[in-house]
């Protein structure tokens, strides 16, 4: 279950059934300095924390890197006030939930950030508010 695969080039992602997380670029900062929008990374694992806050919410995923080492992914999402308007609450995602995230990787070497992610259950079913 806790498998994580790095994809070094653009990955075609099947859109059916996927949910696009709120883009963190909305208002507070541009994603470009932090995340590489020419790359995609995929993380499959278990939610360890869901921080529903402003200016940005984060999902933390216990996963593994391409070397098989345990890592914690930090998936940046939108502002809680904006997400709440589209139905999100602090309970939409809970610690222990299995999850798959596909998004743009953070730029700094050695970090495991992700943004603009599409979130699903590992079986492909959508995560919805």
């Amino acid at each position, binding site marked *: 279950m806790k498998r994580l695969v790095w994809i070094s080039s653009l990955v075609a992602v099947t859109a059916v059934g996927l949910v696009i997380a709120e883009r963190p670029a909305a208002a*507070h900062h541009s994603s470009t300095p932090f995340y590489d929008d020419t790359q995609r990374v995929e993380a499959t694992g278990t939610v360890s924390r869901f921080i529903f806050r402003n*200016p940005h919410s984060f999902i933390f995923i216990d996963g593994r890197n391409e070397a098989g080492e345990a890592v914690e992914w930090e998936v940046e999402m939108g502002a809680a006030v904006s997400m709440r308007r589209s139905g999100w609450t602090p309970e939409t995602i809970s610690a222990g939930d299995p999850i798959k995230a596909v998004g743009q990787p953070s*730029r700094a070497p050695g970090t495991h950030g992700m943004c603009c992610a599409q979130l699903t259950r590992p079986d492909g079913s959508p995560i919805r508010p």
Partner: protein
Amino acid sequence: MSRGHGATRLGRALRAVSAATLLGALVVTPNALAAQNEELPRVVPDVAGVWDGGGRVRPINGPNQPWTPDNFPVLNERAQAYQQVFDEAIAPKYDCVPSSSPAIQYDPYYMEVVQWPDRVLLRYEKDDQIRTVWLDGREPPPNDYSIQGFSVGRYEGDALIVETSQFVFDITGFDDYNGIPSSQLKTVTERYWREGDELRMTLTVEDPLFLREPASYTTRWLRAPAGYKLNPYECDAFDARRAVRFMIPKYR
């Protein structure tokens, strides 16, 4: 700029009645507000309400919004030098410092306008900001500089005019995306008016320390869903800065 107006007895009486009504009921219908003096209209333009400035209303802000190639400010050498050395990692927003005019008006969040007899309150959901626009003719007090500056206003025809000055220096005081600072000499003029159920605004910013000429943009808001109330933002400084380490900084 016309800030000072002599009030008539009728105007003073109407203001007293309005103030008493406000204290008693805390409810004011903007259309029912009487003019404050002979130079102002008898019926105040109604720009009150909660307004949506999000993605369904206008393009989300970014390096090319609301400043496009057509209206992008003409920077002087000082501004260009600041822009060249600017590093995103030092942007104050990563410590929850709120954006100011002319950026705050284009943030894709909700805004509430409250019209009182002697002032207009501009409340922003993002960063829990409140700007007070004084309509009573007062002048900006000396040495009172702040992030949002000091705002005075008036009604002209169908529009609310807001003039703001006395900002503090802000390393990202022009917008959130282009690394252009603004100075204590920045002034911002906003004109709000209604087009049906839309709220529209034209904003003009001047800053002789950084801009060669005034820059301007026009935008709009739509009504928020009925009953919507602004939510507390309560920016978390730790989470605001969390993603900064994902960036490769300009300087080591």
